[in-house]
């Protein structure tokens, strides 16, 4: 039986020494690729165990480097005689700046809670399949009136929704909410349902998407349970159908819906409908249904203005319990104008990212995380652009990027440009060399190494290069 133990401080120190010698011997590139990921995990007698994150890295290091590691270690002390390389995937992610120490749960956008109270009646026919009947609708716990931020663009729709939620009898039938995508129609409908549930749990509220209505109907046709289907829908106190435009062109579903609609209106039961367009503008919808949909109150939701967007972000940031600088919220409210869903999604992404990497939420994080939203395309930087930008920055002639002159005043900027060409483009080193007046790829490698060294010793130079990188990337 073998018992492996943690290496003591002496062995750990020997290993550090071995690593330093490996680095000197094999060079920076090889060291970073293959030797740096090796971690000394365990020791048993004269055997040391080194872990790498992947299987083939183990095979590769084992074949190519393990013998040399053993030789070097033998020179450090007598204890270790053999070295074994093992796989430990958990060593995989090496985070910068210490990484995420704890793992705070990301609760940014939890799944909605299924509604437990008052499930819809189940179909009596056995043919409906497991759990037959209307699948329990789910209401999003965050979609309440309390969380709905009111502004000029949505105040009419909001007021109408509140009226419906607070009235025992339908004040207008149907309430028809419409507007562009992601402006809060679903949020208002869920709010109505939550509010009614709170005021009077005995009232039967059924919320579903038009797609689900259609699915239920087709299923009922297939299993010959249309009578039960009708019965269920006609026995609710409040029926809410989201995104009615999805039954456009589906004639028999529309017909069924038309009859359900009439039956409920006759009994003065409340109906709430949402769509992306006003009733008269809905395409592929029967004329008689369109006219019915416009009978009650038609309330539209307009695109948001800046103040409302800012208000929404503040409210969302509170829900996420995230420290968000006001500058960031202003920036998002200014930049992401398309709709509320994308606006909230953007904030959600930034907060989730910050939690993942264990860093605070900043404006810089936002630029980094949302570059796909903020920039129209992912244009690739070219070597020509890099040369031009660097030449301008250091005030030298563009021709000096290709010239043979070795004066420091032109040689250093040229090295910076080569360095950036390597960092920002996938071009091969020989190709970069060719672009700089037919230089060899070893010259490019030398330039990259030189700039790396300078950056690590001269912070102001490093900032300068970073500034150039940012200029080129945005």
């Amino acid at each position, binding site marked *: 039986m073998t018992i492996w133990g943690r290496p003591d401080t002496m062995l750990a120190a020997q290993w550090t020494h071995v690593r330093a010698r490996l680095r000197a011997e094999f060079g920076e590139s090889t060291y970073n690729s293959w030797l740096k990921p090796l971690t000394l995990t365990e020791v048993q007698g004269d055997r040391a165990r080194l872990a790498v994150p992947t299987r083939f890295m183990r095979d590769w290091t084992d074949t190519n480097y393990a013998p040399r590691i053993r030789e070097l270690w033998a020179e450090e002390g007598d204890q270790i005689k053999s070295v074994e390389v093992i796989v430990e995937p958990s060593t995989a992610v090496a985070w910068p700046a210490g990484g995420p120490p704890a793992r705070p749960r990301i609760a940014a956008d939890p799944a909605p809670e299924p509604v437990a109270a008052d499930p819809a009646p189940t179909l009596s026919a056995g043919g409906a399949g497991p759990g037959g009947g209307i699948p329990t609708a789910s209401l999003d716990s965050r979609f309440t009136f309390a969380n709905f931020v009111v502004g000029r663009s949505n105040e009419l729709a909001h007021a109408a929704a509140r009226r419906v939620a607070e009235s025992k009898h339908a004040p207008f039938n149907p309430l028809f909410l419409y507007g562009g995508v992601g402006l809060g129609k679903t949020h208002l409908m869920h709010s109505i349902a939550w509010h009614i549930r709170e005021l009077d749990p005995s009232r039967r509220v059924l919320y579903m998407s038009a797609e689900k209505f259609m699915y239920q109907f087709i299923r009922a046709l297939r299993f010959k349970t249309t009578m039960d289907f009708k019965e269920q829908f006609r026995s609710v106190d409040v029926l809410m159908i989201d995104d009615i435009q999805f039954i456009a062109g589906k004639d028999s579903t529309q017909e069924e819906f038309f009859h359900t609609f009439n039956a409920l209106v006759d009994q003065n039961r409340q109906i709430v409908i949402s769509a992306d367009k006003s009733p008269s503008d809905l395409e592929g919808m029967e004329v008689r249904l369109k006219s019915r949909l416009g009978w009650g109150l038609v309330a539209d939701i307009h695109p948001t203005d800046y103040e409302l967007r800012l208000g929404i972000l503040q409210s969302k940031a509170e829900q996420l319990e995230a420290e968000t600088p006001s500058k960031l919220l202003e920036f998002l409210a200014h930049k992401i104008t398309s709709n509320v869903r994308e606006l909230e999604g953007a904030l959600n992404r930034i907060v989730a990212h910050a939690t993942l990497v264990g860093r605070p939420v900043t404006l810089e994080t936002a630029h980094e995380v949302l570059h*796909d939203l903020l920039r129209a395309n992912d244009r690739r930087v070219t070597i020509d652009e890099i040369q031009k930008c660097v030449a301008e920055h250091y005030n030298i002639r563009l021709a000096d990027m290709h010239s043979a002159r070795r004066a420091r005043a032109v040689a250093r900027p040229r090295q910076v440009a080569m360095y950036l060409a390597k960092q920002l483009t996938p071009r091969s080193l020989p190709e970069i060399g060719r672009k700089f007046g037919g230089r060899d790829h070893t010259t490019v*490698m030398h330039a990259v190494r030189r700039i790396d060294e300078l950056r690590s010793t001269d912070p102001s130079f490093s900032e300068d290069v970073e500034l150039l990188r940012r200029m080129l990337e945005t």
Partner: protein
Amino acid sequence: MRASAGRQLVLDLQPRTALGREDFLPAPCNQEALAWIDRWPDWPACGLAIWGPPGCGKSHLAQVWRAVSAAAEITPAALRTLSPREALVQNQAVIIEAADGEFDDEAEVGLFHLYNLARELGATLLLTGRGAPARWPTRLPDLRSRLAALPAVAIGHPDDALIEAVLVKLFGDRQLAVSADVIRFLQARMERSFAAARQTVDALDERALASQRPITIPVAREVLAEVGHG
């Protein structure tokens, strides 16, 4: 097909690609994507999009995730006739690769309903594509805004260490023995992209098989000149 004298006819046998979690190469450019995969089901939304250039490991990550989530894989074409409910009742997780392609109307509506239902049921979707979801050619506005709001994580350009490791892995998948010198030689001279690594290794594989010669630096130099990544 024409086999010239002295060259053996090469059968196009697909190499077995290692797609386990242990085979995935962690690197700065993919560490965030990998961290999200490892973190499932603690995700900030009902879905995640991973995007990046060809060969960067999107599919590999999807397979790593499938192993832990038991996700079903749905092709974009299958979205057209999919019943979202049946799909999600069987699997609480779904993978859609190449989700950035041009979908027809039915497929877009299919994905839209699948997304809504996943959100409602607390199921999860993993989408992959070459570009960011906000830039996919989605026509249905309801779907476009949902995709744009989805957490999306990019896999960036590989650094030198990753290119070397990718080369070693690709040679390993093809059971080709190469020396560390050859790897270094290639890494310093080829285009630094995942696609170039794959093409170069494929070309070397074919050459080694056809000529029955081991892959040495002179062979690597010749092949690099031919594939044009040098």
